[in-house]
């Protein structure tokens, strides 16, 4: 007798995005075709080649994050302020929001050992103020530069003692597991733009094999930090459309000229189906397929194969897919590469939706945030438009959905994410009915 396959469904959503800090406002902003890109919030960003960004508005971690032990609430809030970089705080907020939105409770119904956390995260850059004094004190009177011999004696003493712990990429998942008492598997995927989709895929596999019943899956990334901004301006192709920020990130548009750096955190609750049913949870969608692979020749062939593998796992044909939720980095090369892969599997009729025109690119968080968009689309039976794709690039032979709100016509959605090195992740969601 074949083993009954354990199924995984999405039962909770939490997010902090430039377009809203709860699923409803996020969804409304997408429906309205809003772009979050603005001039960057630094008063003077003149040295930066790209001075645009899509930032998360003010939020109060205090109101969003709780510690299970109320007697520790005060020291915990201190930890949040001093021990967690912005990326970490955002990830923790999203994780806790998803947990509460799923109506899960810390005090009943959860076996800690069967509750895990999987996050996508990237390099978390040090805040300048944590290191500036150390560097200044290490300047040698002769060479006029910071020197290691001074750094080791006087410089190092100027750095906060727990400095390193603030920035480790596994901290978002660690803090989620600590505050929600999740003692099952905990992993952090660092595969750049594909990171949070890889986290989702792994959680799915773990639930399927029976090692866990419940996961917080998420992604978090903020580049709104001078060191990150400097680094990404150096190696990433970013838009220079300073005269019209809201139109800067233009996925699959013929006039695209690069990405806009955004920041976001998103988390979802992935739950074994019987468990979700037993507690009468609201089910948003079912995760029915996942695959990963590397398109090293950059011609879209292997990327297409990865999509096919995910469809095969979902036991569906391309014609059953309502829309492909694309990566759409909006660089000349990347969109063409992606379009080739999508075209090879779906031809030029299946609608393609991309959220980066609205949100910019949030790296390791992007896969999770964008997947959340399609999850809401399945839930609400409609698909908001791709914005800023005003003149679709004829070399991208795909049907970008760029006009109005489209009714959901088919029950499946494909989410595609990949890195500049060709590492590709694909997830297939099914509408829950």
């Amino acid at each position, binding site marked *: 007798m074949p083993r009954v396959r354990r199924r995984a469904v999405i039962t909770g959503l939490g997010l902090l995005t430039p377009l809203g800090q709860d699923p409803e406002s996020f969804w409304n902003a997408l429906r309205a075709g809003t772009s979050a890109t603005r001039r960057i919030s630094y008063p003077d960003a003149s040295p930066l080649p790209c001075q645009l960004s899509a930032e998360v508005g003010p939020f109060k971690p205090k109101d969003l994050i709780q510690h299970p032990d109320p007697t520790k609430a005060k020291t915990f809030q201190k930890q949040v302020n001093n021990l967690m970089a912005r990326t970490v705080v955002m990830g923790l907020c999203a994780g806790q929001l998803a947990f509460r939105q799923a109506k899960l409770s810390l005090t009943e119904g959860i076996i*800690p050992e069967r509750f895990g956390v999987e996050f996508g995260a990237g390099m978390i850059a040090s805040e300048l103020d944590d290191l500036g004094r150390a560097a200044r004190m290490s300047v040698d009177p002769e060479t006029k530069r*910071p020197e290691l011999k*001074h750094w080791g004696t006087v410089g190092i003493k100027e750095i906060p003692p727990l400095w390193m712990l603030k920035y480790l990429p*596994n901290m978002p998942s*660690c803090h989620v597991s600590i505050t929600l008492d999740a*003692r099952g598997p*905990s*992993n952090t995927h660092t595969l750049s733009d594909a990171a949070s989709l890889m986290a989702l895929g792994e959680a799915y596999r773990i639930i399927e094999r029976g090692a866990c019943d419940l996961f917080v899956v998420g992604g978090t990334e903020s580049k709104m930090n001078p060191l990150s901004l400097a680094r990404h301006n150096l190696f990433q192709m970013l838009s220079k459309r300073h005269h019209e920020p809201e139109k800067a990130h233009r996925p699959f548009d013929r006039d695209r000229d690069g990405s806009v750096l955004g920041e976001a955190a998103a988390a979802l609750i992935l739950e074994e189906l019987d468990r979700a049913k037993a507690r009468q949870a609201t089910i948003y969608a079912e995760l029915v397929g996942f*695959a990963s692979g590397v398109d090293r020749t950059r011609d879209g062939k292997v990327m297409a194969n990865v999509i096919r593998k995910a469809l095969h796992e979902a036991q569906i044909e391309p014609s059953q897919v309502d829309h492909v939720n694309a990566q759409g980095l909006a660089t000349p090369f990347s969109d063409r590469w992606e379009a080739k892969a999508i075209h090879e599997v779906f031809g030029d009729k299946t609608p393609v939706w991309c959220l980066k025109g609205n949100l910019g690119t949030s790296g390791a968080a992007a896969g999770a945030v964008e997947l959340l968009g399609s999850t809401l689309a399945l839930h609400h039976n409609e698909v908001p438009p791709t914005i800023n794709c005003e003149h679709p690039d004829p070399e991208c032979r795909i049907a970008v959905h760029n006009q109005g709100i489209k009714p959901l016509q088919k029950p499946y959605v494909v989410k595609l994410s990949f890195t500049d090195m060709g590492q590709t992740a694909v997830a297939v969601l099914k509408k829950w009915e």
Partner: protein
Amino acid sequence: MRRIVITGMGAITPLGNSPKELYSNQLEGKSGAGPIFRFDAKTFPTTFASQVKGFDLAQHIQGSEAFTQCGLNTKFALAAARYALEDAGLLQNSKVNRERIGVYLGSGEGSHDFPNLSAALAAGTPESGFKVDPVAFWKSALATFGPQHEYEMEMHTTSGRLANYFDLQGPNYTCQTACAASGQAIGEALELLRRGDCDIMISGGSHSMIHPFGVSGFNLLTTLSLRNHEPTKASRPFDLNRDGFVLGEGAGMIVMEELEHAQARGAHIYAELVGYGTTADAYRVTDSHPDGRGAAECLRLALQDAGLKPEDVDYINAHGTSTQVNDRAETIAIKHVFGEQAYKTPISSSKSMLGHLICAAGVVEMITCVMTIQNGVMPPTINYETPDPDCDLDYIPNTAREKKVNVAVSNSFGFGGQNVSLVVKRFQ
């Protein structure tokens, strides 16, 4: 369930650049520690580390000039992967479907460009005061940082470089769970193979944190040994006078393969991976749980996964970092799962000789377990001089010991509370 075996191994470590050297140096009880030569650390609180000596990528792979801007982590990984794939007969082997070969690394980031980053920071910091002016910082940083260097620091590049260079088109994962990373990578790769997502995975890790920010960070956390006067005696897991770990660096890679696939192509089989357990402490980011709660549970899960009992385990390669907290908690965890059997099970810490390879620690210790099964000699825990009443198990003190080992367990516990145990067995 599909059975998964190891068919290739490669290692770039402070104790040698092959599994054989790595293992035989451990049997001799050699330490890889010495004064730091990667940068001028003479005034740092800790002035020594366990470093890979005389490494030149050009001696290990062809076309190494394409990787000059890569971090040491990526360079170590490329070299170790080359040997593992060659050992498994998979370098340029077109008979094997390259879309069925995946990569799962637990690997770290590259290192910051200290001279230019510190200069940019200094340029932005007033003589008195703490607030750094971003404009001054950017002006300096954008003019001096190397774009390719900054790109190669990103964590997806290591597994990406491997996939692109060696033509490995299957599933590609990178995880970063600190000191548990490469153990976790091997465990999850095992599950991907069992499930049938691919037939072969190259798994392991690579890391070097022996740079000014790495050593500063660990020194500030007071986790590094300060025994500057005798580096080779500094890593002393389970010894009463242990005072922290010794920072190491390097890479290890193993080729994991579905059994029938390996047999069909006549591959040499080193051992079989039979068990994996993983948990989170969910306790604190700064300390592991004092009772080894998560560690005990993952050990139990790994044995259960392998269908084995504590008395079936012949040897444990401990996480054994040489910090006060870890070694005590790990001892408690082993006792908790093994009961009386804990006292009869030989345990040693490779970190006493290799130092702590952080993300790469788990895989190098797994390779040590495989070599132990193959050769029948268990490496020692060196520098074990004064017993700690809290750590009262058999840690194979100071000299290697002969024993036929059929089943070995390798533990890895990460900063932040991730725990991994792996069980490897003689192939029969």
